[in-house]
């Protein structure tokens, strides 16, 4: 039995408890994993998400450059170029032992052109967190500094404004400060238009710094706008060169010139001398930064006379062929004297303008009510803003009075007792050239000519222009302003500068005019303030500037010179007023 029993083959038997232990162990492991996974993903996912975001989420912002300023033909007048600011975090410099390798500081000092000690002094205080070491360094220098790898020294994007035209347009365009905010001229007035804001975006970056996901826009940026001025850089350059020459030659306090397009009221050039270089600001003198063409007003003197004639013609107080006696070269008005340089005898209106006779124009003025004349002065834009969008305009003024003495009425007709700026003067002459229609002036390029107001009838404006031709011809006061090929309707002016209690010894030399008479295109006003020496007459000082700029500008604009036949016709028109 026992033997047999021993022979029984034992069936293989499962050892149940082992199996259970193993299964139990595996199940436990799996459930542990599941629980852990569930814990991470469901119960508390935020912490890991946060950790991940810390490593990958970044906010980027693009650098926005200030808008360009160009002239009417697309020539650049102001361009922004990105540069870098070098700044230091002194706390970090100290923390990471930034002074370990002094050779690097030496190199940094050399490339920034600053004494090493100054730089070290700036980062001395470990409590500070932000110190500028140098602003507006070029990208090449910035790259060099980046490679110096001094701990705590960082670079920041900023931009630098360049003015390729330099001093030629300096007062007009103005300046930006180091933080790219316009502080003068057009830069100031159009600051918001020119300035853009960067777009800030939340992005996810991969380990090697590539953007792999754009998540959201934190702040929608605004694109900067460009500005197209009405200025024609070629004419501006010419105008500046000539006014500078005249100011220096006559040792004048300042000179200014404005060139207007008579049909659109656009300012083609506006220059002031002395000027400054806006690209290098170390020696900036504030008096050079004034845009004298609009900020400084003066008594217009004889340049106002054509408008007295025009007013008299318009309102019927004189006929075009009127003859006025100016003998004996002076006259007594209300106990005071009005005088000419010499006795001119009987003069036509054209000759009164050509000889610039104070007596003649006073008689004309006294023959009409003073309100009529003042009314015309106001409608020509005197004593009021021109509407040009530039900071600091001084609109000048017209003396207000309830009772005008005869002498005051006389002086009003030869440009005393009222003040105007260069732009206003040019605008008045542009009105003559535009058939008597006064246009608002614009410093921005216009797409269509603006609405104007008719001050004189086209006939009167034409007649006065024909009369004014005599000024630049033989026997006139400004032969120097004559241009061969382009007939000029212009007028000189030499006004004494008012000082406290009367008039002083300084003069303002003026010339303003329109050309060509047969087909008016440009109006120019030239003002030279306080020329030294004996040569102070408007025709001598300002006349040549006018002639050079006018003929050059008309040539640049491809205006056809007058033909022989037309010349004969014009001369006949002019003679008809004698």
């Amino acid at each position: 039995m026992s033997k047999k029993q021993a022979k029984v083959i034992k069936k293989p038997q499962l050892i149940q408890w082992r199996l259970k232990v193993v299964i139990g162990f595996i199940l436990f492991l799996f459930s542990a994993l599941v629980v852990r996974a569930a814990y991470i993903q469901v119960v508390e996912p935020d912490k890991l998400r946060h950790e991940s975001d810390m490593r990958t989420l970044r906010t980027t912002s693009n650098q926005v450059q200030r808008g360009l300023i160009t002239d009417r033909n697309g020539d650049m007048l102001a361009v922004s170029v990105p540069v870098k600011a070098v700044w230091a975090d002194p706390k970090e410099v100290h923390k990471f032992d930034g002074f370990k390798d002094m050779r690097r500081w030496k190199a940094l000092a050399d490339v920034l052109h600053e004494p090493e000690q100054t730089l070290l002094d700036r980062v001395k205080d470990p409590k500070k967190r932000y110190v500028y070491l140098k602003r507006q360094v070029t990208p090449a220098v910035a790259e060099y500094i980046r490679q110096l790898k001094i701990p705590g020294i960082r670079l920041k994007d900023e931009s630098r404004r360049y003015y390729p035209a330099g001093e030629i347009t300096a007062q007009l365009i103005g300046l930006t400060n180091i933080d790219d905010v316009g502080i003068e001229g057009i830069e100031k007035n159009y600051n918001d238009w020119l300035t853009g804001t960067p777009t800030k975006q939340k992005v996810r970056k991969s380990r090697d710094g590539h953007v792999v996901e754009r998540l959201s826009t934190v702040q929608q940026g605004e694109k900067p706008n460009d500005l197209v001025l009405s200025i024609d850089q070629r004419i501006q350059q010419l105008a500046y060169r000539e006014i500078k020459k005249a100011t220096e030659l006559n040792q004048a306090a300042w000179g200014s010139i404005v060139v207007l397009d008579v049909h659109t009221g656009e300012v083609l050039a506006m220059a002031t001398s002395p000027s400054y270089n806006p690209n290098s600001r170390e020696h900036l003198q504030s008096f050079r930064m004034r845009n004298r063409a609009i900020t400084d007003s003066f008594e217009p003197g004889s340049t106002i006379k054509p408008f007295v004639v025009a007013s008299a013609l318009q309102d019927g107080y004189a006929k075009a062929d009127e003859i006025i006696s100016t003998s004996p070269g002076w006259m007594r008005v209300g106990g005071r004297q009005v005088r000419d340089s010499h006795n001119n005898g009987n003069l036509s209106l054209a000759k009164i303008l050509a000889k610039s006779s104070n007596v003649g124009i006073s008689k004309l003025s006294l023959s009409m009510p003073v309100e009529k004349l003042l009314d015309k002065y106001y409608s020509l834009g005197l004593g009021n803003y021109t509407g040009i969008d530039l900071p600091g305009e001084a609109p000048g003024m017209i003396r207000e009075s309830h009772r005008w003495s005869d002498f005051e009425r006389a002086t009003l007709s030869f440009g005393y007792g009222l003040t105007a700026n260069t732009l206003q003067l040019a605008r008045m002459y542009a009105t003559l050239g535009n058939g008597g229609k006064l246009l608002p002036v614009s410093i921005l390029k216009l797409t269509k000519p603006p609405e104007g107001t008719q001050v004189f009838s086209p006939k009167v404006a034409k007649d006065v222009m024909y009369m004014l031709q005599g000024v630049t011809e033989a026997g006139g006061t400004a032969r120097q302003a004559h241009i061969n090929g382009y007939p000029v309707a212009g007028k000189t002016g030499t006004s004494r500068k008012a000082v406290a209690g009367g008039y002083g010894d300084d003069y303002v030399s003026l010339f303003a005019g329109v050309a060509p008479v047969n087909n008016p295109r440009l109006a120019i006003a030239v003002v030279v303030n306080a020329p030294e020496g004996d040569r102070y007459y408007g025709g001598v000082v300002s006349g040549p500037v006018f002639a050079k700029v006018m003929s050059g500008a008309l040539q640049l604009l491809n205006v056809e010179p007058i033909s022989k036949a037309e010349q004969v016709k014009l001369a006949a028109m002019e003679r008809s007023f004698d």
Partner: protein
Amino acid sequence: MAKSSLSLPRIIVQDMWSHKWLLLLSFVVFANAVAVVYTSYVSRQLTTKWDQQLQQRDKLDIEWRNLLLEEQSLADSSRITRIATKELDMTRPLPSEEVVVKIP
């Protein structure tokens, strides 16, 4: 005991066949998952490329600005006038000597 007619592979195949729709669906789910992964990979790459293009644009803009400045100083009309008058002995004709040709 069972005979050879009951082979395991056969049973498996039969079983799969009876659940063929379920099987298909699970396959679709898997393919879908792979597609999601692939698409997000491609989209990341495209985003990276886009970003690089934007940077490229900024770089070109900077270059353009510097070239503008260079062009401006080279094409400066006073410089051209100087070269024309001094080096090339040119003069500007007087207005009276000028003939304007009009193109009809």
